[in-house]
């Protein structure tokens, strides 16, 4: 790849730092306003356990790995949290915001692979487009996972290209971060390895053994194993965790079946196409991808094209789909969008000349920016939990935010200093998060007999079992998620 147009190192990094700071500034406002999604609440609870001194207990079936908690824990401590009840939405989501910012900054390190122009455009897209901004403000594993994936691609490439062991160690660390983030790392490892094989087969001139140096491979493997072990055993405190990894593949296969999250093959395409800007960005990405494949491109774009295709097909074929997984596709697609934009700019300059093409391209760029800005505003800030927002998936209703305040008010009115709250529901999440500041809260499954309490919170299907107990209580509905209601039973005012 010709990098003649690449500016000096300090200018390049200054530019990417500015874009990353812009992305950070866009991700920080109103970070604590959106209600906690169930998955965020579960992750928050884990951080709460760690704050109280417990070790991370790895369970690949119900939870993801410890990497997110390992980053959120020190950040929360720096922000002054000492217990679960001290945590705030903003404290926790800061981890994902920082991971998203690192992803933007990594485009600065990708210039040697993909060129300055495409990396610049892709970094700008990731910094302000609705989908990455939206999910970088979610306390889930995806942003960190994507940053680690990008890190693995960049450091892995450098490992193959040079003799230094530093990139190899970085590649091992990134891969460890991926596997300790989410079990889906296996899919990515497979896609990366297969893309590498395809790319070598396509290149013909380069031999695989020239790329895979034993010393680098060893350093990467040792780093990967060491960091994975440190995180999975939670710094040596829980040695049972690595053994649970033996269930990883069967669990992954079972989960891939859907588990209530089945979606059609084209689900991710629909999400990428959403909004005023989605269609344009997706079309450009497809153009960039098709051109790369059609040209039998031997540059790193060729490798990225195989990886992107494999990833898109794999994710689309798996019935289990959640919208935040789209972030994994967004990263490589942003580079292909950028590549298509660069190609159009070159074509316009060639055919129309600079004097004519520059104003036209500026107008088109401004128009695209306006469309992206509109979508980001609508999705991220104006209607983050709206059912019409395609990124808001089974989201906690804003109505639930009123539940703790209502209990506090009613407790005060009834002269109850420390209310005893009994929750009876088969799936109480995210209630543990919203009730974290009450000291006496118990959770029961339907069929179990709860203890005496001042307030009862029940799912609508279990209230009948407590009918006798609830005779003298006043019910009030709260929306947990769209279409899912719970009941707060409070003592009738004295």
């Amino acid at each position, binding site marked *: 790849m010709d990098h003649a147009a690449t500016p000096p190192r300090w200018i390049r990094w200054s530019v990417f730092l500015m874009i990353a700071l812009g992305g950070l500034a866009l991700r920080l406002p109103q970070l604590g306003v959106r209600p906690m999604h169930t998955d965020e609440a579960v992750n928050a609870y884990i951080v709460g356990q760690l704050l109280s001194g417990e070790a991370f207990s790895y369970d690949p079936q119900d939870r993801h790995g410890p990497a997110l908690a390992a980053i959120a824990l020190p950040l929360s401590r720096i922000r002054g949290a000492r217990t679960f009840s001290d945590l705030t939405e903003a404290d926790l989501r800061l981890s994902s915001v920082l991971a998203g910012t690192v992803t933007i900054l990594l485009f600065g390190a990708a210039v040697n692979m993909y060129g300055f122009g495409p990396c610049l455009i892709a970094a700008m897209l990731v910094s302000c487009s609705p989908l990455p901004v939206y999910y970088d403000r979610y306390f889930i594993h995806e942003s960190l996972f994507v940053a680690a994936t990008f890190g693995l691609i960049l450091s892995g490439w450098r490992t193959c290209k040079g003799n230094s062991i530093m990139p190899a160690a970085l590649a091992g660390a990134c891969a460890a971060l991926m596997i300790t983030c989410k079990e889906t790392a296996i899919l990515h490892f497979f896609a990366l390895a297969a893309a590498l094989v395809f790319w070598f087969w396509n290149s013909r001139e380069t031999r695989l053994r020239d790329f895979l140096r034993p010393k680098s491979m060893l350093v990467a493997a040792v780093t990967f194993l060491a960091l994975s072990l440190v995180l999975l055993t939670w710094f040596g405190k829980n040695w049972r965790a690595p053994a649970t990894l033996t269930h990883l593949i069967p669990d992954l296969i079972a989960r891939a079946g859907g588990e209530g999250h089945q979606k059609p093959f084209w689900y991710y395409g629909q999400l990428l196409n959403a909004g005023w800007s989605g269609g344009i960005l997706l079309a450009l990405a497809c153009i960039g991808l098709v051109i790369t494949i059609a040209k039998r491109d031997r540059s790193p774009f060729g490798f990225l094209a195989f990886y992107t295709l494999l990833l898109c097909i794999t994710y689309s074929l798996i019935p289990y789909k959640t919208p935040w997984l789209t972030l994994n596709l967004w990263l490589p697609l942003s580079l292909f969008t950028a590549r298509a934009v660069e190609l159009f700019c070159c074509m316009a300059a060639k055919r129309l000349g600079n004097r004519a093409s520059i104003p036209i391209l500026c107008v088109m760029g401004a128009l695209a920016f306006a469309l992206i800005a509109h979508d980001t505003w609508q999705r991220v800030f104006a209607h983050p939990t709206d*059912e019409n927002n395609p990124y808001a998936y089974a989201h906690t209703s*804003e*109505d639930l935010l009123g539940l703790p305040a209502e209990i506090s008010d009613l407790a005060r009115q009834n002269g109850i200093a420390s209310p005893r709250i009994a929750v009876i529901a088969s799936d109480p999440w995210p209630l543990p998060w919203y009730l974290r500041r009450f000291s006496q809260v118990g959770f029961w499954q339907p069929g179990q007999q709860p203890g005496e309490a001042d307030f009862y919170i029940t799912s609508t299907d279990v*209230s009948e079992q407590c*009918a006798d107990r609830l005779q003298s209580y006043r019910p*009030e*509905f709260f929306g947990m998620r*769209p279409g*899912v*209601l719970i009941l707060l039973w409070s003592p009738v005012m004295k």
Partner: protein
Amino acid sequence: MRRIPFKKCSGLAALIVVCAALAQDKVPLKTQLPRPLFVGTPVPLNVPNLEPPIKGKRPDFLVPAGTINLAKNKKVMASDDNPVTGTLDLVTDGDKAGDEGSWVELGPGKQWVQIDLAKSANIYAVLLWHFHSQARVYRDVVAQISDDPTFKSGATTIFNNDFKNELGLGAGKDLNYVETYQGKLIDAKGAKGRYLRLYSNGNTTNKLNDYIEVEVWGKPA
């Protein structure tokens, strides 16, 4: 003392109601129900202070013969001049389907819609559909009838489940209910008035206030 079985007792009560209705020339209220859009959230049964869900079709509600829907295509006003979604005429257009485009959505918080029946009437029932494509409960639902379009005087409250008096219209004693395709039937008990005003204060999914359709069953006074 010998106890009368509950089934016999309720059968007797039903017979008395029917006989009384026949004596007053009453007929069951007949309205066209929309297609159900969700199977319904299970709500508690046999809990005395919560409205039980309707199992199957709602029992017949008797109204005097000649009672008609006076609200059809009548003029609608609202506290929100610029609805978030839809237009106010959707409230009385006769379309009770829960699909998108069938409802008007008023802004967040306390809002009302008002139907002008054109003439004063004796109102026997109000049927109200807020939203029925998912399980929702609308907060602080109050229905009033009056001959005064400002509702400053002569307002008769026919339904009020605002038990915390959030709207300032007085604390209500009626129960919360989950929206379904069958709508909420309010017994207006023949209250007289030209205007019907319906209040609400957001719902369990969001802070907005939706209306698919309102029917006002009565006879011109």
